[in-house]
């Protein structure tokens, strides 16, 4: 069954440390996205990708990097984690069929930066 898998499910990091969130999709979708979800803000786009080797800045990219080494994998990297990056992070993949891209989301990563 096609899916989007995120790891880790939960993560506690120290301020100033490096954090890598991983995402793997078996949907064979070209597009992948990283969002963070915070109460009162909804889902905000951090980075996205159109395919292997491509990364694009979303609406709130500051403090984050992204890497798309293959069609299946899309990582979000926090080089110097800060407490303001405590959030729930969702990865999604999208299919461009029909002119729009309905997303399939992963189960999320809960990140706590202390």
């Amino acid at each position, binding site marked *: 069954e096609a899916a989007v898998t995120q790891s880790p499910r939960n993560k506690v990091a120290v301020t100033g440390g490096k954090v890598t969130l991983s995402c793997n999709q078996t949907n064979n979708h070209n597009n992948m*996205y990283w969002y963070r979800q915070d109460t009162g803000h909804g*889902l905000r786009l951090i980075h996205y990708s159109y395919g292997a080797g491509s990364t694009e800045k979303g609406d709130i990219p500051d403090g984050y990097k992204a890497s798309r080494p293959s069609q299946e994998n899309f990582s979000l990297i926090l080089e110097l984690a800060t407490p303001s990056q405590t959030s729930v992070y*969702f990865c999604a993949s999208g299919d461009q069929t029909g002119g*729009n*891209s*309905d997303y399939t*989301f*992963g189960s999320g990563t809960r990140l706590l930066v202390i």
Partner: protein
Amino acid sequence: QQQVRQSPQSLTVWEGETAILNCSYEDSTFDYFPWYRLFPGESPALLIAIRPVSNKKEDGRFTIFFNKREKKLSLHITDSQPGDSATYFCAASGNTGNYKYVFGAGTRLKVIA
């Protein structure tokens, strides 16, 4: 800059009532409006979607009403059930070809039995 706005932020209804969740947008180039539902601890999942060529889209107990002139839409959940308790996100995407969604802040719905 909030391109997609949702109201109310939270909503409580009794079982059997109709819940109405509102959404408005600013960008007139938006041409696709999906609603996603998020249960605690789970993934956001597509619930129902509409394009501006229609002013209504129905799927079981879920109906989207769309007003292109006013740039507003609403999700009606009839005969609400406790299992409908979740956060509902309105989203929008344009015809620019980049297939990015802009999400609203969400409405947290609670249905009381």
